[in-house]
């Protein structure tokens, strides 16, 4: 009886929280399909309007969102992939291979992530200029790998430490090499952890603005940079800004939706519980 009451209260609280979180999202979604005169109306109009896709057309035509989207997908997708390929064996080494001061090394690796972006963005800019990489996808991929890797190693290490060691030892007795142990045993067992880590890495790079702003101008710029162009000195194009924001949000929803089974399990165990 008491537990039913308790779970009902929790459920009610969850609904309230979700509502609070979703109101701004709903506002952005609605704004993205409102005609400009309704958006700028002195009396707010929430639902009573004829929806339009004009702002979506505008972000693609005027703000070249198509190219920015492609840039975002390429830089974020490739950097996440590289991060995961390097992070898994690195995390395995730190978690399992009896390295001298393994825990200290894990912390040292994580501490690389503590550096405020603003401190290193100018040196990055100088280096990129010197290497003629400004405004390319490559420069952002390199930076996102450098910034995503320490965090990914740290989170994965936590997941790997939670896996039973016996199973790897059974694998060694079955004649598997280290690489086979990682790919045939660890990867399937750590799939939830790997999914969660990949999502964290992806989300960080996907939302990243500072490096993208400094290191790209036009050809290589990603969605957050393109979005910012809807705001100029005199105007905020609320419709275009909202349409761009919705476009930025959609892939995230898709990724989380596809991996939700793993995410739920991954968050329930491992380092990020």
């Amino acid at each position, binding site marked *: 009886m008491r537990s039913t009451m308790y779970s009902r209260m929790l459920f009610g609280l969850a609904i309230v929280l979700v509502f609070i979180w979703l109101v701004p999202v709903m506002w952005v979604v609605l704004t993205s399909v409102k005609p400009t005169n309704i958006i700028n109306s002195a009396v707010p109009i929430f639902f009573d309007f004829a929806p339009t896709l004009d702002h979506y057309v505008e972000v693609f035509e005027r703000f070249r969102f198509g190219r920015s989207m492609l840039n975002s997908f390429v830089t974020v997708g490739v950097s996440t992939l590289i991060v995961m390929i390097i992070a898994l064996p690195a995390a395995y080494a730190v978690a399992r291979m*009896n390295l001298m001061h393994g825990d200290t090394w894990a912390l040292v690796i994580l501490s690389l992530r503590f550096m405020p972006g603003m401190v290193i963005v100018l040196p990055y800019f100088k280096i990129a200029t010197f290497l003629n990489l400004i405004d390319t996808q490559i420069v952002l991929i390199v930076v996102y790998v450098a910034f995503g890797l320490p965090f990914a190693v740290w989170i994965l290490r936590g997941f790997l430490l939670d896996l*039973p060691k*016996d*199973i790897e*030892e*059974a*694998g*060694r*007795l*079955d*004649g*598997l090499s280290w690489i*086979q142990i990682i790919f045939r*045993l660890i990867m*399937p*067992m750590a799939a939830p952890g790997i999914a969660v880590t990949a999502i964290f890495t992806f989300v960080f790079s996907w939302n990243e603005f500072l490096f993208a702003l400094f290191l790209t101008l036009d050809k290589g710029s990603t969605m957050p940079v393109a979005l910012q162009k809807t705001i100029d000195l005199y105007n905020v194009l609320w419709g275009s800004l909202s349409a761009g924001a919705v476009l930025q949000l959609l892939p995230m929803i898709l990724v989380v939706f596809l991996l939700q089974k793993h995410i739920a399990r991954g968050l329930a165990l491992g380092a990020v519980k």
Partner: protein
Amino acid sequence: MTVSLKNLRKTFADGTDAVKSIDLDIEQGEFITLLGPSGCGKTTTLRLIAGLEEPTSGEIYINGRQVNDVDPGDRDIAMVFQSYALYPHMTALQNMTLNLTVSGLSKEEANKKALETARTLGLEELLDKKPGKLSGGQRQRVALGRAMVRDPVCYLMDEPLSNLDLKLRELMRTELKRIHKKDKVTTVYVTHDQAEALILSDRVTVMKDGEIQQIGDPVEIYGNPANEFVAEFIGSPSINLIKADVVDNGIAIEGNLVSNRNFPTANGGVNLGVRPEDVILSVTESGGLKGKIEFTEPQGGVVHAFVNLDLSEKKLKNRDYLVVSMDVHESIDVGTTVGVKFREERINYFDCGTGRSLAETT
């Protein structure tokens, strides 16, 4: 000799001496148990044989070949883990065939072999199930099957029955005995359960603090323990250790002669080790050692009586009461004063100072 350990030592990075100089020769087809309390080094010894730990010094031979630097997968051994360590994302069949396919056997051949093994263990129905869908006992069988299917020269088993309930444990114990009798594969079995060790083994190795205390067949270990530790560790309820004096004509407890044996070397007196079933209580005895039955523990066929000995000071070394096993049909009521005698030929004598058996000194 299937497995041979020469002067084997293992010191961990934190300085713990887990195994201190072990010498052990295990014969072909032998079932040998490493028995001891937690932290005695038995599992570390097993892991050293498996190659999961590197020895600090000493040599390990398997089938005459020194394997110190050989990978675990190339030692031709199979291990059953306490946790079973089944691969959770693979079916029972895949668990059993992984080693075979890794070592180059075709999938068909591997499956055929696994099926044969599964038949002997009654696993046919479970082969397409993943470990998560199996009960504890079934997982245990799959783990056993995974070891058996490889036809190794030696099985290493690390407390494989300790996660099962009592009934299942007894069943699997019998199963293990049956399999060993049939296949005669050398088996090194780690356990802290002395009953399991006595039932299963050809030879028992009792360990303490990283050292071997005694190696012998179960009857010898039980009947002639090498020291007080082995005497106490083996047997349930454990042996009674009683401090006695060496007198001119034998051994006495507060003047009551209990044995005619003589130990001139034991200056400080001797400790007698008397198993609960080797104590004879009588209600009619008038002279000699006496005591009162304070309480009893019925165990079905036998009753354990706890006797408070009528002595001026505490002579029992390891407990307050003398524990006596009685047949349930011949049990004596609580509160009765009884005469206490020991079966003289079964008494073990230990040096009071070192705790070592004095059997060799006479």
